[in-house]
């Protein structure tokens, strides 16, 4: 295959599938109890310098307890997959935990606006960045999941997004047409929040999967946080809805309301007031430091964060809001 042009962005991870196979050969397939705590999961599976990926869609079905814990444990020098990342990215920027980034969507919270602190961090020059599109990153994960070294897409061609990527324009051996080859990406560790999982890690996601099915299969280590821990027999009652099997999973943590302040489909809506507060306090760096101390550094765990955000009373309001969309209250 002829390479026609190359992006100049740094390639952070080795796309060699045989090295990945050597890793996956050794990864345990034992169906054993993988339940642990958020604190232990991060201590054991997220190390300084690792390449990290976060599941969900920014402020929808995010493993926010893990994201907070990574900041609380003050991880440093991480690589990060900036794929559909919004509030999760904002929190990780607050902790300055990463210094290299594959970026498709960063610093924004969609219709809510831009994160001032995330912008400051990205404009500081402290982070090495490579540009991609959302689909390009999904395909990089898909290639990894398939055990091949690259995927082929027809996006990014002709743009600066391509120039600042680590993709390569190639000529199709069949048609002679131009395509973009994007390198497989095996993150060191990923965290995904799901609706139900058993203690072995068999997981059920309700609603859209975003790119989590690819991510679960590409990641070398995988932490599952789940709204509800269920018995293995519940999984076996309807295996058609299992989308992440146990042999991909390293840790399982039950974290009810674990996507807060993000939306969890069918359970609770996003806390727009709290997300707006994040965006507001970021404007003043001193205020923001106090805010972070109050909500992350000085709390022992995510449960205490929930309490400080209004606890069950607030959660019940968000459950009602979600029911307006997805439940019996819907007109």
């Amino acid at each position, binding site marked *: 295959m002829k390479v026609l042009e190359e992006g100049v962005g740094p390639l952070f991870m080795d796309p060699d599938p045989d090295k990945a196979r050597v890793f996956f050969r050794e990864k345990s397939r034992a169906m054993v109890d993988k339940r642990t705590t958020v604190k232990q999961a991060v201590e054991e599976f997220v190390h300084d310098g690792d390449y990290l990926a976060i599941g969900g869609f920014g402020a*929808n079905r995010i493993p926010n307890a893990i994201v907070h814990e990574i900041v609380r444990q003050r991880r440093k020098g991480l690589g990060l997959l900036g794929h559909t990342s919004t509030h999760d990215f904002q929190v990780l920027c607050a902790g300055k935990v990463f210094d290299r980034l594959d970026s498709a969507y960063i610093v924004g919270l*969609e219709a809510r606006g831009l994160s001032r602190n995330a912008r400051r961090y990205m404009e500081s020059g402290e982070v090495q960045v490579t540009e991609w599109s959302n689909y390009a990153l999904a395909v990089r994960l898909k290639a990894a999941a398939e055990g091949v070294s690259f995927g082929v897409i027809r996006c990014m061609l002709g743009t600066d997004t391509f120039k600042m990527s680590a993709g390569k324009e190639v000529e199709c051996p069949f048609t002679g047409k131009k395509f973009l080859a994007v390198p497989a990406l095996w993150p060191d560790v990923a965290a995904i929040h799901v609706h139900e999982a058993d203690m072995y890690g068999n997981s059920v996601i309700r609603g859209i999967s975003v790119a989590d099915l690819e991510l679960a299969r590409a990641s070398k280590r995988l932490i599952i946080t789940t709204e509800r821990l269920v018995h293995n027999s519940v999984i076996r009652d309807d295996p058609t809805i299992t989308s992440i099997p146990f042999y991909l999973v390293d840790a399982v943590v039950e974290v009810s309301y674990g996507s807060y302040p993000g939306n969890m489909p069918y359970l609770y809506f996003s806390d727009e007031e709290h997300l707006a507060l994040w965006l507001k306090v970021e404007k003043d760096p001193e205020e923001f430091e106090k805010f972070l101390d109050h909500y992350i550094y000085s709390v022992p765990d995510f449960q205490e964060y929930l309490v400080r955000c209004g606890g069950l009373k607030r959660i019940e309001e968000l459950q009602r809001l979600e029911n307006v969309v997805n439940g019996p209250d819907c*007109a």
Partner: protein
Amino acid sequence: MAPEYNMMELMICVASRYLENGKTVAVGTGAPCAAAMLAQKMDAPDLVVLFEAGGVAPMLPKMPISVGDSSTFYRAVMAAGMSEMMTTCARGQVDYAFLGGAQIDKFGNINSTCIGDYHKPKVRFPGSGGANDFASLCWRTMIMTVHEKARFVEKCDFITSPGFLGGDGGREKAGLPEGGPYKIITDLAVMGFDDETHAMMIESLHPGVDVDKVQSVTGFELLVPSDIGRTGLPTEEELRILREEVDPLRLVIGRA
């Protein structure tokens, strides 16, 4: 007497009329979503709405705040993922997509990545997200935006998503499939693109707006055909549906 309306309402009504029945449209949050919802309630009940995070043909109960929030797949026919959406675009099954950005040039190329030098940006924006994918792979892309000189620029600081790139033949040369920018709907006018040069041209002017006004807030020379039309005003029925059914909380159309 013609009904009263604000500019956002006008833009949404105009955009909605381009969305044909039985076609597919990839939308984001805000005005594009309102336009698609309005089209469905007017002349395009079988318009299929897609969201990049995986929602297929939802019965939108309200305006989404995220393209991945639960309303984007409320009573949908499928809750899929990003690959399903983008492969559908790549196969040629997505007719329209709405895009946005900080800068747009005369060939409809879009910048949503940064202002200033890429390595030392004055302002860092989100980047492509799914925009480059839609701009590369959908048949017709549209933009709804305010018309400002800082936005309509001779040259984008960074081309995040492709329009017609350098003009005629630009997409083909780059390896992109046929497609590209279709309409730019602003608070002053509707712009299209010349069939041959693919440069931006004025198609219709909104009430009280003339060519000089549009040109004065555009950072490049717009093509001005001799048969410029007047933008069709929002009808009473469009406004009623938009205000009562599409956006009753006035999140997008505002409280003006």
